[in-house]
């Protein structure tokens, strides 16, 4: 057990240091390419090949965030009380994880626009995202080095409430991001693509929620005296389900009425992701609210 913990710490540290190094490398690559690309100067094949390394770096960061968030969730599962710092760490981990996909999309767009001789405003968005991710990697590596994540587990609890709450926090973030991303479709309706902006984006934005729910599911399956929800949790889930049902009906009626004369427009591909993310957002928010009503 101790050996496994040490191996995990080493793997995490290697990935973390790799992630930081690659983010610094990415800054240099971007600083080198941006001045050329915005004035449409030609790029050498050597410079173009550097983008492959940027991609590898992003993959390493993706694995590092996944591993770190998993370690944090594992640790807080047995804590007596959920701490704000832990929730904050999970949230920045989830956001950084999602931002990896944003990085890929932005770089892809920049490349396409450069080839077609168009301006590339995406650069302005890329730098803050990468800086945020670099800060997350630095924080997680610091946690690793300080031994914070590999400390001994506290006394196990029979029924955990922390994992349940973390699932709701992740649901809240994914729901909110999904709602925001889907709402953008109304602003850029001409450019909105069914597969890219609806199917793929929704899949990516739901991925952290799917992963954390799968982890919760696995933990429950391993329990001897399995009980999916605790008594109070069941009551809270019931209340938030009712709240979600009412508010989602109101929202869908409003969406239908607001688009009554253009139902064959962009709303025809946006209604499902809007509904999905709204339900996820309201249900998670409701659960958090009712859980806090001790």
């Amino acid at each position: 057990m101790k050996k496994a913990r040490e191996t995990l710490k080493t793997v995490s540290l290697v990935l973390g240091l790799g992630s930081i190094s690659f983010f610094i490398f990415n800054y240099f690559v971007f600083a080198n390419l941006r001045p050329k690309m915005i004035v449409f100067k030609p790029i050498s094949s050597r410079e173009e090949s550097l983008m492959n390394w940027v991609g590898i770096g992003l993959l390493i960061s993706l694995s590092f965030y996944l591993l770190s968030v998993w370690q944090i969730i594992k640790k807080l599962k047995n804590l007596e009380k959920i701490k704000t710092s832990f929730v904050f760490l999970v949230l920045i981990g989830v956001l950084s994880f999602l931002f990896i996909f944003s990085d890929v999309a932005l770089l892809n767009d920049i490349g396409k626009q450069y080839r077609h001789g168009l301006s590339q405003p995406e650069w302005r968005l890329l730098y803050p995202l990468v800086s945020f991710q670099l800060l997350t990697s630095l924080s997680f590596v610091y946690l690793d080095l300080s031994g914070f994540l590999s400390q001994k587990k506290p006394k196990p609890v029979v029924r955990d409430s922390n994992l349940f709450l973390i699932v709701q926090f992740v649901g809240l973030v994914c729901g909110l991001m999904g709602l925001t991303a889907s709402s953008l479709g109304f602003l850029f309706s001409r450019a909105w693509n069914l597969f890219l902006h609806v199917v793929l984006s929704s899949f990516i934005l739901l991925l952290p929620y799917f992963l954390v729910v799968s982890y919760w599911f696995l933990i429950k399956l391993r329990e001897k005296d399995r009980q999916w929800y605790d008594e109070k949790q069941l009551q809270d889930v019931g209340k938030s389900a009712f709240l979600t049902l009412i508010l989602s009906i109101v929202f869908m009626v409003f969406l239908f009425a607001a688009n009554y004369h253009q139902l064959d427009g962009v709303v025809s591909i946006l209604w499902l992701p809007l509904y999905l993310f709204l339900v996820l957002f309201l249900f998670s928010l409701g659960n958090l609210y009712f859980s806090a009503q001790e």
Partner: protein
Amino acid sequence: MKLDNHLRRYRFNHQQISQQDLANQVGVTRLTIHSIEKGKFNPSTLLALKIARFFKVRVEDIFYLAKEEKEK
């Protein structure tokens, strides 16, 4: 009529057992015990029986109807 309880008092009389330890003994989360103590959540009959059995008392020694207690 409201269901009230002496759970907090029983915990303290029982070697000051923590909410988490009691929750572990009866198979619920700490938040459930906390909510019961605060009167924000009414436990099921099963949970009330489990709690009473843990303290080796009758259910009505811990749980009572708030109006009844006033009348006493």
